[in-house]
């Protein structure tokens, strides 16, 4: 090996060793630190498995240690007392033994020993603490004084209410007096404990539109050693209801939704479905618990839009009213122990400037006042703490009761299949004796043709179509599944117009399907049994199996309709059986589409079958 290569090797080993010794312990963990009232929050750029954080000062003196549970996290709160303008080092020990250090400088200014916040209307968190309210409305202003220090402090609060705002009620803790045309509300309180607070709410009436009133609060504080003042203000702008209502509006109302606002595609919009205790449970006297009266049975979603430039807090109320009287409908009345006994649901939401937000309101059902029918869900919105309703929207809702449909239909199918099979087994000899050997052979061969021209292509094509089109493959396989099938069925009925011929053909087809494709499932047996019963009934009623008849246009149409209806019923029942026994889900609109397409295919097939059968009858009598 040349000298150059040895040198290269040496450099590589030094580099690797240096990385291991110097850089292997500490890892590049990125993040920043934010200081707050209770300490500091470490905000990492990526989630990390941190097991411990030790906080030290510049001299290495320890300030706090936090031990964390296993797992990854991106934000770590550190509870500690910090000094303003100091540098702190946050040493994080990672779960794999590595470590990382973040250095941060605390803010230069200490947090206020006593903080004063004035918000009007209530709850807004903007810089000024003020907002826009409708003219002549009653609003709630909130004053919050918090002692952030250990030492007790005497606080004297003065709230100056300017002209343009009227005090509706003076709070118990304050005294009112006038000075130079301004109403002053004064109060005094001793805040002895750390984090003790003094909180007052004022009910004020706003003036006329276009006025700006500045509500001011000042605080004089005395801790026995020093004396200082603090002040805060909130500008309350007044506008017309129409102007504000134009900016804050109800963008959408949707019901029913789930508890987190998702729309259920299977549920019809505007239809609220009530699930009474199961009919079967009622019959057998079963106790399954049932829904309690303080649990919602459905939800509604109300979306509020804010086209203004300021964030607003809105109160959204949802009332279900009787469309005739406009009064709260007893059926939907919220239980009296909820929502302060108001009888309707409400919620508060913050809507950012030029944004929208949704609230989910629960709907309750009073079983003792239950009345199915049409109602109106009325959504109303107002600025939180302000009396005036800004916007409203009505939505028609209908209350229906849901039943155990799939289960009941499946049970019905099973019953019919059992009865039919039982009867066939019991009367098998007599039933078969009615057919001559030739007729049995004809039926058998028709069954074979059906299998070859319907089952086989449908199985192969359905599989291929299913891969591409999924559940929508029925649009393509319907030609074989329904048109050809019913053409053959009706033509057999024309050749052998006797009750039982169709049933025997279906049995042969079922056996072939089982023998060749292994389809021996209970659902398929149920399905064939239903088809046999319904077809025999329909063909008998239309006269198709009551002896040879002439095929006029009317008769063809009647047969097409009858077969179409049979297909509708059997397809629907098949869906119910699959949903019950195989726990599958299908949307109502999908079931409807399959049934509709099936009806068309079947009716066409039946019509063709009439013509085919007529031709074959002549062959058979040759």
């Amino acid at each position, binding site marked *: 090996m040349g000298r150059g*290569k040895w040198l290269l090797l040496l450099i590589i080993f030094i580099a690797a060793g240096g990385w291991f010794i110097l850089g292997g312990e500490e890892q590049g963990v990125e993040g920043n630190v934010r200081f707050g009232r209770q300490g500091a929050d470490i905000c990492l750029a990526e989630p990390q498995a941190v097991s411990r954080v030790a906080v030290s000062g510049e001299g290495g003196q*320890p300030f706090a240690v936090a031990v964390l549970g296993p*797992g990854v996290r991106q934000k770590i709160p550190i509870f500690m007392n910090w000094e303003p303008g100091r540098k702190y080092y946050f040493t994080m020990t990672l779960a*794999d033994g590595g470590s990382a250090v973040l250095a941060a400088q605390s803010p230069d200014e200490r947090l206020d020993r006593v903080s004063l916040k004035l918000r009007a209307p209530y709850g807004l968190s903007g810089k000024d603490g003020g907002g826009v309210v409708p003219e002549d409305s009653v609003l709630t202003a909130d004053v919050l004084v918090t002692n952030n220090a250990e030492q007790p402090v005497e606080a004297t609060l003065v709230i100056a209410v300017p002209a343009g705002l009227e005090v509706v009620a003076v709070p118990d803790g304050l005294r009112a007096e006038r000075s130079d045309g301004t109403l002053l509300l004064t109060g005094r309180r001793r805040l002895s404990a750390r984090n003790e607070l003094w*909180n007052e709410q004022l009910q004020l009436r706003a003036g006329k539109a276009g006025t700006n009133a500045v509500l001011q609060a000042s605080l004089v504080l005395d801790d026995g050693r020093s004396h200082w003042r603090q002040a805060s203000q909130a500008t309350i702008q007044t506008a017309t209801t129409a102007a504000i209502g134009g900016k804050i509006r109800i963008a959408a109302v949707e019901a029913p939704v789930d*508890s987190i606002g998702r729309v259920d595609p299977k549920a019809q919009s505007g239809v609220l479905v009530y699930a009474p205790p199961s009919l079967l449970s009622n019959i057998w006297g079963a106790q399954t618990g049932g829904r309690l009266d303080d649990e919602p049975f459905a939800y509604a979603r109300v979306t509020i839009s804010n086209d203004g430039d300021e964030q607003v807090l809105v109160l959204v109320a949802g009332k279900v009213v009787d469309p005739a009287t406009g009064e709260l409908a007893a059926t939907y009345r919220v239980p009296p122990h909820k929502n*302060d006994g108001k009888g309707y649901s409400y919620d508060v939401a913050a809507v950012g400037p030029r944004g929208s937000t949704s609230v989910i309101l629960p709907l309750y059902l009073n079983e003792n006042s239950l009345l199915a029918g049409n109602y109106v869900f009325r959504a109303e919105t107002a600025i939180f703490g*302000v009396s005036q309703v800004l916007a409203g929207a009505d939505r028609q809702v209908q209350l229906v009761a849901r039943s155990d449909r799939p289960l009941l239909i499946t049970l019905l199918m099973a019953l019919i299949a059992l009865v039919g099979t039982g009867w066939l087994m019991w009367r098998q000899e007599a039933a078969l004796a009615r057919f001559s050997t030739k007729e049995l052979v004809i039926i058998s061969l028709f069954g074979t043709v059906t299998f070859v021209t319907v089952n086989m292509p449908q199985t192969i094509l359905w599989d291929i179509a299913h891969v591409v089109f999924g559940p929508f493959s029925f649009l393509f396989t319907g030609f074989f599944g329904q048109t050809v099938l019913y053409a053959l069925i009706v033509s057999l009925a024309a050749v052998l117009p006797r009750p039982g011929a169709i049933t025997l053909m279906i049995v042969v087809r079922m056996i072939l399907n089982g023998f060749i494709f292994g389809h021996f499932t209970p659902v398929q047996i149920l399905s064939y049994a239903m088809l046999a019963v319904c077809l025999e009934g329909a063909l008998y009623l239309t006269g198709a199996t009551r002896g040879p008849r002439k095929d006029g246009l009317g008769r063809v149409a009647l047969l097409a309709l009858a077969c179409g209806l049979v297909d509708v019923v059997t397809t629907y029942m098949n869906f119910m059986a699959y949903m019950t026994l195989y726990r599958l889900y299908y949307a109502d609109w999908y079931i409807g589409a399959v049934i509709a397409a099936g009806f068309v295919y079947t009716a066409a097939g039946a019509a063709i079958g009439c013509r085919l059968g007529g031709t074959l009858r002549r062959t058979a009598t040759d």
Partner: protein
Amino acid sequence: MAKRNVVLAIIILLAALLPSAGCGDKSAVVQGVFARDGIAIVGATTSEENPREVILKVDDRPKPTKWQKHGKVILLMEPWQAGSSYEVLVDGMSWRGMAPLNPMPLKVSAEELGSLEETPSVKEWTPAVYEDVAVSPDGKYVGVASFDRNVYLYDDKGQKLWQSRIANGVGVAVAFSADGSRLFVGESSPDANIYAFDTFSGKTVWQHAFAADIGSSSAPRWNQRPKITGLIAAGSRVIASAEYTQRVAEKDGAGTKVKHVTACVVKAFDSQTGAVIWRYPQTGAMDTGVSRMTASADGGKLVFANHSWSKGREYVDGALRILDGATGRLIGLHRLAPRHFSYVGIFDGIHLSPNGNYLAVITADSRGMLFDVSGVTAEAAGRGDGFRLLWLRQISKIHQVGGVPVYAYGNTARTTDDGRVFFMTGGTFLADKTASTGAPPIVHPDATSLFAYSADGGLLWKWQTEGGISKLRFSRDSRYLILPVYHNYVTGQNDRAGLYCLDLAKSGGDPLVWFYQFEGVAVAAAIAGDGTAIAGLEVPLRRADDRQAGRHRLHILR
């Protein structure tokens, strides 16, 4: 040629890095923890044998010290001083650290429990998972009634001793007997059983079904079935309350009227045999539920409050009842009337001091009060109310905002033998939180706050946290409080979820001793009577993007 050299260099570099990556096992780091009762050294020993030599140096000066081995942890029984420098050498392995201001929790173990059928969502205001944990009075065992339908027993080193499945039910309450020999578990199931397990073997010694008293149901959700609502071990007895609210359809003339009927009973059992000692009420059932039960240290008095949304007829919402612990006889009754809302709503907000003299109560509308109940005795029963109200405070003000009440509900109450009282408020409600599903965009200034009051009702201090609070647990002497906190449904964050340990005896400064952050959320916690062992249950949280944070774990700390 040059290209070949570069390739060779890269291959050699990779080859050099590979062994270097494995070198120096970074996970075997010796760590020291300044715990409450000394300095714990973790990672210095991996074997079960004792180390040969343990040396302590304080500010570089050797100091003799006693030490114990606790599993793989070496605990130096050294009262450390904040700001001093400590070095510990264990068989030559060294650790050095500077003592902080407050002690740290010593992580003993974090064991994974079974998978859960549902988990809380950050968008919802409840933790959704309802399970319980208890620590034996001597701190040696930890019992869990888990939402995964199992009962677990662990030792204080984090070793699972046994596990038992609750068939077709879920455990919702757990408690140890006073001597620690029995682990009691209450379930939610069609039977509403209380089980008594032998702590050491895990065998079911006895069980009792409340279904005969309150009814039975096969409702799918655990909170719709009959269930044990409270379990308390008092002396040689264990007292359990069970409740069931069912929908009843009655014929009303031509039609049918639907009612929701509550049935609740309280029973006392012999801890060892399971024999029923007494039943309250003696016949029938209360038509309202009961709050958590609280008893004096000697078990002589048992106190609870009736609660119901629908007032109740005989057992009215807001009635405070004191029973004789030995006989179950009612010896004191005091009725609180609703004020701000149509109900009183006492759930966890009731506590009797260990000496049985003081009763602290906080209602749903945050009215906090202290009663002197020393006059309520079995002998004095029937001679008047016996409850003497010492003081009443509106702990958290209810803001009436345009007809909507905004408040922080009264959650928990605790009182000591000298009459000091601690109240904890819950999250922000707009009337009734269950009546709306979204998180309010505003936080009440007194939400999730702990208030300390003197015996004469003066506020001593207030401490506030974020996030929802689960069941608080206190050490026997009420000095330490362990607070499990779950996610903050207003901000949609769970960074402050975990266990908080507060020292309530601290006269000045922040009462918070330490915070142990969970990856998920904390739903229950327990502390040994002497404050040594602490257990917390973590469950995973579904975030806004439907991904999960955290795991179902049992954390054991010291």
